[in-house]
């Protein structure tokens, strides 16, 4: 029955090893779960006739684009009230950017807005170096997103029609927004 018991030195060696092993196990588990269940969300490709609102617009254009999104809802609301799409003058009177002529509209290219038939508005840039010209197409369906088109050359003539093919053929580019991993916050106006 005789037995020799060697007293081992006290130390954190074993505990350190166990903690390390536990950490490795957790890492392996996490890596396994991520590799098995993770989904890749790659950048969504955009078509050649489209511009990414976040990456492809300059500061003035981004400001205008945002203002147009806000204005589109106002326009739709005013249209519902009166039954007809509001005129540019009425919108400017409301003080609604970018239709109101103020300091920011001056600095963003001093666009001259005109109403097009079919609930659309054309803003001709007076300074294409600062910002291109815009077309805003307000859909009647309240759930639909406003359709914004941009054209950077100075010959921004009034489009013949508002369907995408005509606009693309005339050299307009659609400004699109999309939600992907690069977005840290999104304001839905």
């Amino acid at each position, binding site marked *: *029955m*005789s*037995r*020799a*018991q*060697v*007293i*081992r*030195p*006290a*130390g954190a060696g074993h505990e350190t090893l166990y903690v390390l092993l536990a950490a490795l196990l957790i890492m392996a588990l996490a890596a396994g779960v991520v590799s098995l269940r993770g989904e890749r969300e790659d950048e969504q490709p955009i078509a050649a006739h489209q511009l990414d609102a976040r990456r492809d617009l300059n500061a003035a254009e981004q400001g205008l684009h945002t203002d147009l999104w806000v204005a589109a809802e106002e326009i739709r609301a005013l249209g519902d009230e009166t039954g007809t799409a509001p005129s540019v003058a009425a919108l400017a009177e409301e003080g609604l950017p970018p239709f109101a002529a103020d300091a920011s509209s001056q600095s963003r290219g001093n666009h001259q807005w005109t109403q097009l038939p079919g609930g659309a508005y054309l803003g001709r840039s007076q300074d294409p170096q600062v910002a291109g010209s815009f077309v805003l197409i307000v859909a009647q369906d309240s759930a639909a997103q406003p359709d914004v088109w941009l054209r950077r050359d100075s010959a921004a003539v009034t489009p013949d029609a508002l369907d995408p093919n005509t606009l693309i053929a005339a050299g307009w580019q659609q400004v699109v927004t999309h939600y992907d991993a690069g977005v840290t916050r999104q304001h839905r106006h």
Partner: protein
Amino acid sequence: MTAAANLPLAAGPRIEFAGIDLTLGRTRILENVAFSVAPGSVHAIVGPNGGGKSSLIKTLLGQMPHQGQLTLHWPSAGEVIGYVPQALEFDRGLPMTVDDFMAAMCQRRPAFLGLSQRVRPAIDAALAQVGMLDKRKRRMGALSGGERQRVLLAQGLIPEPQLLVLDEPMSALDEAGIRVFEQLLHGWRKAGTTVLWIEHDLEAVLRLADRVTGLSRKVLFDAPPAEALTPERLLGLFSVHPRSESLA
């Protein structure tokens, strides 16, 4: 009584310290400590404060990052080590009675559920042995230092140990407590329990120990008390520069 006389019926282990070094931080606490404790003997360790006595005991209990070989040679199946610490402080208001303390030390069942029927006879016997049976409902904090030390002794008796490690058990004991302790020591000697005993009272060591080791960082002597406790050796042990004395 000598260790040799006890050897045939010894139930306690032989303890072998071989070249034990202990360094904490940059302080050298033990240096090449080598001696052995005979099975069933009462082995005293004496030495100045800070000489590494308590550290040696903690090393034996596996709580120190020592170097060197420290081996317990157990002769039988029972491998129980009893430990009686130097002193324990309890707040006066701590609502822990002697019974609660014994329950916390000796049983697996939570102490607030009371004493378990299995260990109650052993606890009764241990408290009776140290003469604390009539004070078992007192709070630990309300006991005197000597009484508390007796409870610590009683705690070391359960379950019955084959090796008992005592860290200055007599320093806090009163007259009656010392008599109780001496009786216990005789009992352990009869049962063949190995006792490793740190003590300041050299007279008690001379009277009660089988062998005594003088420890002041190194082992300065290791001999039967009558040989070891001579004035020259003690002067060497308790002097500020205790290195002059060579190994006995």
